[in-house]
């Protein structure tokens, strides 16, 4: 089991790219990425909008992994620092 503040669960950080607001909170290893994303809106006091996406802060898209738990993400070495970002829609090409 990961050795990180086991009693409270792993810390996740979420940056809201529309404003640069940040949320930092404890999650559980058994929570899915979708649950973490949903919780991030609560922590940020923001509502989810159509077109929002959840990414790793290195820019990696996380859509394929939303049903994985944090434990599974760690095992697969996906966004291992658990620093995420919410990106809103934009266009302009």
């Amino acid at each position, binding site marked *: 089991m990961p050795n990180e503040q086991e009693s409270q669960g792993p810390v996740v950080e979420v940056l809201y790219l529309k*404003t640069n607001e940040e949320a930092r909170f404890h999650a559980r290893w058994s929570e899915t990425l979708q649950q973490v994303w949903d919780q991030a809106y609560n922590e940020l006091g923001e509502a989810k909008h159509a077109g929002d996406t959840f990414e790793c802060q290195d820019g990696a898209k996380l859509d394929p992994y939303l049903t994985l738990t944090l434990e599974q993400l760690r095992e697969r070495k996906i966004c291992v620092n658990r620093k995420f970002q919410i990106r809103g*829609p934009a266009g*302009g090409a």
Partner: protein
Amino acid sequence: MAKIGADPILNSPTAAREALEKDLVQGLRGRTHQRPHPLTLLVPIFGNPDSESPDLFLLRLQFSYYPDWPPGAQFVNPFTRQYDKTKDLIWLPRIEGNSRIQVHADYNNSMGQVICSSMTLEFYKVRHGGKESEVWTEKHTFAATINEIEMGLRPNDGYKGRMG
């Protein structure tokens, strides 16, 4: 608020400045910057940021229409702090195949540089079409402008180096 197909409306200098002051610290998030005018920010930004030699660009943000409309955004020559379309292509990034952002050295061969993203004022000034879901809203701050441009400067998002 911003709307596709509508002319941007100039804010009063006082109100625009107050809005910028309110958003300044969080919007910059510790970034290096200069403020040559109360309504202008110069922000260094890097192409291919994770490489051994990232490409430096200088972004000029102008806040006369802020916050109901996004800031004007242009890449400028870091030495002159201006953009001359005949000489400064090297100071523009080339982005290909990214549906969220493109950089035009001279939009429609007459309108000058346009960073074509719904997070910039010029997108609305040139009457670019788009989806309502992608429009700048009261929820956005200029952080969205910087973030969106910066994310377009990664190789995986179509960044191909300098334009000139």
